[in-house]
């Protein structure tokens, strides 16, 4: 069988597996967030935290609980990193320097998992497992619960209450993320991912040289790194590392883990607003744009002449930075899936992709991580864009701007506009400053337009909480550590506040009955318009920067 045919069958198998899990997982999450019954374990947790689980919060209180939890999480993680040499299982690793510890703490709490360090030479086992991996769970949970609070804005009427942050966070962690991680982790172990706490040991190789073999509790972290759309690798090489991703099967399964929850959350949304067709419409938008990304990257990596890669033409194949066992198809499918979600794990070097293939990974992130986006973050981002679309539709054809029975008034549009503007503002400001200043510019590895792409990619990745890198850029510097940490926090939490505000504003409204003037938001027309709005918004925002980077390189 040809590589291309095998690649398409691999994609087909993935689509089938995702489709099979869509209804059960989506329905299950809707149940988790709507049932009145607390588990005994959960009651114990509420008592330990000291909160009343039946206290329904206003949007402001919900946001303050979320921000307090995240702020304390940053401090807690920063503390573990700074003190790791005094803790158990440090494996001789030194305390992480302040700027790097700040960047890493911000990075993991914001679900970005941008990494300015290499795991095998910086982080001890305890830091990985009780510091970084905890945020793999919690940042994913926070993303999901903010999306659910927004969905409650559509569900509820004439109330100012959106649910309880602690209850939502505890439930999604206990009832969904941990069980998923246990099952997925065992499958990864069976596939050969390592999981031990053995010290690094040196062996004499077959030809008599020496090699140090690292260890670590990898499988338990790898699974939630993918399923929580975190992406922070245990090792520097991330999911290209054979200890994290040993075989074509684990590669396929990790891609499945990346996509399964963000897609299923559209079902959760449809179920919760009692109109599952609305969930399918959002799913359709996500699937179309995801498949376009997969097709585009696969095409340019296998047709590297069209992709504009001189090195691949000389070598007769775009294999630089690609593992033999995954091949071009495994690399392309992973690269598309990790950048359209906010995962950012990598199984091949994105810096070495063809200019157009790499350009698509960049554009994927610039889409704002909504197709399907990060766990939770993708859903709320898509809902904001749906609101913008009904507003645009209202302007174009004179329809009443309504979505899921709620009017889109100036207050809602202000929240939506603020939400949309935050990310591009941080990306373009960060990129502009880094190109304009001498010191950050010196971090560029590759000459020409590719160098601009490296910096643009870095800020797009951080601001969209993706975390993948054009890793040639040397970012473990005071500038990128400090500014990057700020960019990640602002671009994660400012939009979350706007989303919760939007939810609060929607919840106060009385539902409006659908009339002849209401646009039907479950029909193909709306799906097409939503795709159009996404592409136009992104195109207008990023086109000049993309033209100077990947387009200029690919068309040279």
């Amino acid at each position, binding site marked *: 069988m040809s590589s291309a045919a095998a690649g398409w069958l691999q994609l087909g198998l993935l689509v089938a597996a995702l489709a099979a899990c869509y209804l059960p997982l989506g329905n299950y999450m809707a149940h988790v967030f709507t049932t009145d019954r607390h588990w005994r374990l959960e009651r114990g947790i509420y008592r330990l935290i*000291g909160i009343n689980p039946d206290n329904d919060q206003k949007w402001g209180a919900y946001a303050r609980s979320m921000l307090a939890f995240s702020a304390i999480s940053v401090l807690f993680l920063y503390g573990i990193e700074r003190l790791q040499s005094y803790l158990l299982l440090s494996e001789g690793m030194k305390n992480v320097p302040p700027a790097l510890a700040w960047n890493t703490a911000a990075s993991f709490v914001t679900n970005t998992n941008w990494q300015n360090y290499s795991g095998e030479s910086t982080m001890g086992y305890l830091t990985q*497992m009780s510091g970084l991996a905890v945020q793999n769970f919690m940042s994913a949970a926070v993303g999901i619960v903010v999306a659910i609070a927004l969905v409650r804005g559509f569900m509820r009427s004439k109330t100012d209450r959106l649910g309880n942050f602690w209850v939502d966070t505890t439930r999604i962690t206990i009832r969904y993320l941990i069980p998923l991680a246990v099952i997925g982790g065992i499958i990864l172990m069976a596939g050969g991912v390592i*999981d031990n706490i053995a010290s690094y040991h040196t062996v004499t190789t077959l030809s008599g040289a020496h090699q140090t073999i690292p260890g670590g509790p990898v499988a338990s972290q790898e699974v939630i790194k993918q399923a929580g759309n975190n992406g922070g690798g245990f090792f520097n090489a991330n999911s290209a590392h*054979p*200890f994290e991703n040993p075989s074509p*099967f684990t*590669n396929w399964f990790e891609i499945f883990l990346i996509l399964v929850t963000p897609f299923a959350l559209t079902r959760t949304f449809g179920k919760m607003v009692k109109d599952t067709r609305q969930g399918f419409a959002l799913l359709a938008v996500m699937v179309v744009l995801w498949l376009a990304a997969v097709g585009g990257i696969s095409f340019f990596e296998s047709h590297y002449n069209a992709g504009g890669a001189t090195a691949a033409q000389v070598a007769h194949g775009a294999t630089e930075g690609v593992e033999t066992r995954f091949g071009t198809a495994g690399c392309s499918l992973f690269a598309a899936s990790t950048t359209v979600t906010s995962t950012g794990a990598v199984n091949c070097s994105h810096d070495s992709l063809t200019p157009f293939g790499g350009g698509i990974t960049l554009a994927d992130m610039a889409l704002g991580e909504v197709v399907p986006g990060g766990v939770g973050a993708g859903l709320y981002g898509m809902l904001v864009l749906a609101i913008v679309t009904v507003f645009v539709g209202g302007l174009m054809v004179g329809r009443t701007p309504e979505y899921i029975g709620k009017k889109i008034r100036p207050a809602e549009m202000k929240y939506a506009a603020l939400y949309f503007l935050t990310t591009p503002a941080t990306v373009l400001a960060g990129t502009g400053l880094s190109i304009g200043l001498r010191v950050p510019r010196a971090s560029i590895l590759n000459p020409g337009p590719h160098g601009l792409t490296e910096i643009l990619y870095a800020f797009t990745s951080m601001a969209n909480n993706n975390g993948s890198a054009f890793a*040639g850029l040397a970012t473990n510097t005071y500038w990128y550590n400090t500014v990057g940490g700020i960019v990640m926090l602002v671009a994660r939490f400012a939009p979350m506040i706007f989303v919760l505000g939007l939810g609060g504003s929607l919840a106060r409204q009385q539902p409006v009955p659908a009339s002849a003037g209401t646009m039907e938001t479950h029909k193909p027309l709306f799906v097409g318009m939503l795709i159009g709005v996404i592409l136009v918004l992104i195109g207008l925002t990023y086109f000049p920067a993309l033209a100077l980077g990947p387009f200029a390189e690919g068309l040279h």
Partner: protein
Amino acid sequence: MRRQMNRLPGYVRQHIAALRGIVVFTVLTGIIYPLAMLAVAQTAFHDKANGSLVTYHGRIIGSSLLCQEFVSAKGAPLPQYFQPRPSAATSGASNDYGCDPLYSGASNLGPNNPKLIAQIKARQKQVSAFDHVPISNIPPDAVTASGSGLDPDISPANAAIQVDRVAAARHITPAQVEALVKEYTTGRALGILGEPVVNVLLLNRALDEKYPV
């Protein structure tokens, strides 16, 4: 205690709840969960969980998941062994030729970087001279670095161009080497996932076992 807490301002109470929250969740997801998974790994998947280690005459020589370098003390490739892909996983020290698991990673050189193009051309020349094959016959994986720098595999095409040289160095027939290559070639998983590969360390160990130099 509870009454005292209620007297504190709201933002202080929120942060105390947050601190308790992060401690509770650290215990759950950062200690209980990974240790339970570790126990499963060490009992049910002992060999895999410890890195799929490979032994030769009773001593551990590496992992079947990690490439190793087969070079002389001066860094010249040893003709009696199949050679892995070029590797960017190196400390940069002059005697570290790659496949160093302490420095996993790719070259990250861009697709039009003159440095990468020069590297590929130099490797093509070297392979062409070492294996006596024309440059047009050299498969791409033989002249490009992998994503991890630790890629344990080479493509069957890459193995094929090395067969004659290995056979000559071991004074055996190419057919004998080809038979072993075939034995250590793995096809696509389920027929469709990934690419066919040859595991270099397992192949070289089998060569040493069967046809010692």
